[in-house]
């Protein structure tokens, strides 16, 4: 990388009970999040969960119905986006089609009347950082998707703003390019040290890039945690099934042999945590087997619950066969059926019951 004098420090963002309501529909429902300065936070969730609305409220493009938004400790709830000192990359890139790449990148600097010498200097740095040197005179229409993406990134970072927002920036790229850009965006964020809020519906993007993942569902916060915590200790059944491919298996207690008392709970075990075990607590019938190369994915049924098991290719399972399945006690997740919350306090008790 070239000389790095574009560095800056990020600002923290705090959302306090933020809501967005349109008539009868509540897009975002009393959401509270804390985003640390200089961190990479991913807003993750299925379509229509309110993640883009949340980002647009932080950007000041969407009115806040209730609650407060603080940036760097200052209340910005009523401020227009131009006064929030942040930059944004749009899903469609939103490049100005009539301006050249160079003009697109320095647009904000021109608006803020930064002198020509400094503008050119910063443009040179950003262009070499993103490999856009050869393309500065082109119009956005003459660029490929990946190049347009870089221009949008350049426009976002040249202003040296403490916060950068991104709204599904990689969704228009092909798989290979998406992987490259993921690495590049993460490196850029760490190098420049700004606070990143990144909206995505792709759990892989969120898990691989973010320091903190904010998982939303129907406008509500499901869980805000680091990627490891989110995978290893999901707070709700939704979080458990949203993170990980294939999703975590959730069983009623009837699926386990020798378990009678705990019908108030959902019991979760990840497919990759299960193995063939002649003494295991689950008796299941194999429905179908998918060969994935590195391992085998078996669709099974136990007590009318279908679930998936990831097995090494060395184990030969065939459709229609009865199998016994087991797992390490630490791999068990327990969720309260009534409240939907994680119940770590009863894991030991249930584990003991399964072993007996």
């Amino acid at each position, binding site marked *: 990388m070239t000389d790095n004098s574009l560095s800056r420090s990020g600002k923290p963002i705090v959302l306090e009970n933020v809501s967005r309501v349109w008539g009868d529909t509540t897009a975002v429902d009393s959401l509270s999040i804390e985003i640390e300065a200089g961190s990479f936070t991913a807003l993750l969730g299925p379509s229509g969960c309110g993640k883009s609305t949340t980002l647009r409220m932080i950007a000041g493009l969407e009115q806040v119905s209730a609650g407060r938004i603080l940036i760097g400790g200052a209340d910005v709830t009523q401020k227009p986006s131009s006064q929030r000192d942040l930059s944004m990359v749009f899903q469609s890139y939103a490049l100005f089609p009539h301006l050249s790449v160079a003009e697109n990148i320095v*647009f904000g600097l021109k*608006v803020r009347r930064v002198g020509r010498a400094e503008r050119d200097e910063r443009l040179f740095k950003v262009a070499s950082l993103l490999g856009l040197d050869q393309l500065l005179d082109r119009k956005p229409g003459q660029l490929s998707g990946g190049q347009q993406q870089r221009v949008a990134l350049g426009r976002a970072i040249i202003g040296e703003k403490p916060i950068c927002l991104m709204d599904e920036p990689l969704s228009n790229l092909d798989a290979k390019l998406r992987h490259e850009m993921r690495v590049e965006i993460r490196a850029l964020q760490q190098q420049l040290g700004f606070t990143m809020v990144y909206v995505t519906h792709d759990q892989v993007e969120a898990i691989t890039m973010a320091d903190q993942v904010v998982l939303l569902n129907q406008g509500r916060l499901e869980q805000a945690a680091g990627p490891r915590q989110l995978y290893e200790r999901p707070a709700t059944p939704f979080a458990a099934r949203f993170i990980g491919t294939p999703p975590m298996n959730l069983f009623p207690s009837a699926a386990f042999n020798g378990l009678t008392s705990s019908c108030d709970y959902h019991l979760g075990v990840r497919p990759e945590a299960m193995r063939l075990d002649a003494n295991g607590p689950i008796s299941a019938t194999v429905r179908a087997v998918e060969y994935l190369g590195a391992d085998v994915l078996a669709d099974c049924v136990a007590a009318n619950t279908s679930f998936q098991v990831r097995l090494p290719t060395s184990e030969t399972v065939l459709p229609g066969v009865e199998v016994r399945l087991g797992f390490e006690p630490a791999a068990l997740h327990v969720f309260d059926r009534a409240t939907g919350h994680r119940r770590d306090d009863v894991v030991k008790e249930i584990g003991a019951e399964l072993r007996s």
Partner: protein
Amino acid sequence: MSRMSIKREWVHGWLLLLPAMVFLFAFTHIPAVTTLINSFFSTPRGRRSAEFIGLENYQEMLTDDVFWKVLWNNLWYAIGTIPLSIALAIAMALWVNDKLAGRSFVRMAYFTPTVLPLIAVANIWMFFYTPSFGLFDQITGFLFGWPASNYLGNPETALNAIIVVTVWKEAGFFMIFYLAALQAIPVSLKEAAQIEGAGRWTVFWRITFPLLMPTTLFVGVNAVINSFRLVDHIFILTDGGPDNASALLLFYIYEVAFRFWETAYAATLTVALLVLLSLLAIGQFFFFDRKVHYK
């Protein structure tokens, strides 16, 4: 394929083209060519048939004071109507493109003048301009105590009064094009500019207006053609008077041809008008083409 069937296809093709071609030739091409030919002949009168007189009609035109006067009037009329109606059209389009209560009603209201026939419009404005009873005199008399004024009868103000009517008539029509163009501009461009710190004014001049350039070119060409083409209201409002103060080129051609029956000279004036319009259209395309961004 045999020669016979090729020929049949050829006949079919021409038969399909025929209806449109008949009308195009009858009402556009043949009259245009005839006009050009007539401009080199004298006007036939009674038993005396038209004679070839070369460029005599053109010499007469160049020394005709009325021709220069109406040409000059037409220039002022174009300068007065085109920028004003385009600016108004953009302003109205921006206004009704925003979220506002009763938006569709306002859109319809702006478009109404376009729907009305120009003759009807002229009659309405005739009432507005009537000395002492008219709307304008009533308002200015009530508010400022101004005396009655004859806007249409005064050589100083007659052309301006007609310019006002034309702008009122045309702005709503052009607004429709701008409204369509505005709705084709993605909102995210405006949002991106806002986030970069641009105010409303900057967003308009740096983003919206440049992206409207193809529409402005189209509207501009139409407005120029209209400024030479639309003369109906002059017949109602001023009849070209007083002292040709409000006569335009096409109005003068009509007078020469169908009031004075100087058909050859009218043909000459028409050729002049055609040449002028072609030059303007070509010029506009060349001038704007470098500045217009097409998607």
